[in-house]
């Protein structure tokens, strides 16, 4: 029996899951930020802005995590998925 087919099958399996992983990274990160904001609402000073200093209003860790997730989805993941698809078609 020729065993060289097994790695090919593994690569094929991985290739199918790559776009899914790439497309999920950003939303999962943003969701983690949202969950953090729900668990620790006092960290989101926009919810109670009166009497807060400028830095407390600018730097809110759960919102930073959401921002990174959204920025990653729009700037990195979206064009990367297009390239991944093109590369997949080109290599077929």
């Amino acid at each position, binding site marked *: 029996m020729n065993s060289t087919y097994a790695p090919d099958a593994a690569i094929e399996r991985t290739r199918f899951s790559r776009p899914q992983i790439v497309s999920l990274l950003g939303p999962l990160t943003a969701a983690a930020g949202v969950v953090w904001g729900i668990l620790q609402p*006092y960290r989101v000073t926009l919810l109670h802005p009166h009497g807060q200093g400028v830095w407390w209003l600018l730097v809110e*860790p759960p919102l930073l995590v959401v921002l*990174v997730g959204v920025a990653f989805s729009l700037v990195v993941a979206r*064009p*990367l998925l297009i*390239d991944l698809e093109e*590369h997949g078609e080109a290599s077929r």
Partner: protein
Amino acid sequence: MKPHAEMVHWLFAAGILFIGMCLLCEAIVGRAVWQMRPWRKYLWPGVAFAMGVLLWPVMAFFTNSAIHMYAHGSWAEVLMLAGGAELGLVHGRLKSPYWRLTWPLAFVVTGTAFIVHEQNPWFFARSAFLHHLLGWTFIVAAIFPLALVWRPRSTALRACFALTICVVSVQLFSDRDVAPIFGHLSPLAGEPHR
């Protein structure tokens, strides 16, 4: 007008998280796909270099002691060196893969600086605990960028490198100026706040 130290940690944590996610994506899709768009190959090395530059004002404005100044200054230097070397490599200006030794160097210098500049024991306060933890994380995880110099195509090593960066980001996001750690807070640390 100066932000709290914890806020600076959170801002850097956001940048580090972005770098970690880019590295993870690069490990998943492979370098060929990642570099299909010219701007993307400069993205995470550029952000790393910029964060090295931004560490200089941190050094200047958060000089609690000489050891803090040395620590922040050495991070700025090694992060700029590693980010700059990576920029040179992806651009093709630098050829030798041994330039990637700047990453394990950056990890070891950063880890050592974290441990050396934290004067308090692990359970003094959360920030002390995290400084020790971050230091040892960097020193132990230096094995991944070191191994990548000789196994640059290893997906597992690149994923481990990326996940290390993400873990560092989570640790930085957990930082508070004065807060307990596992119920421990030294009375010398001051009054905890949110």
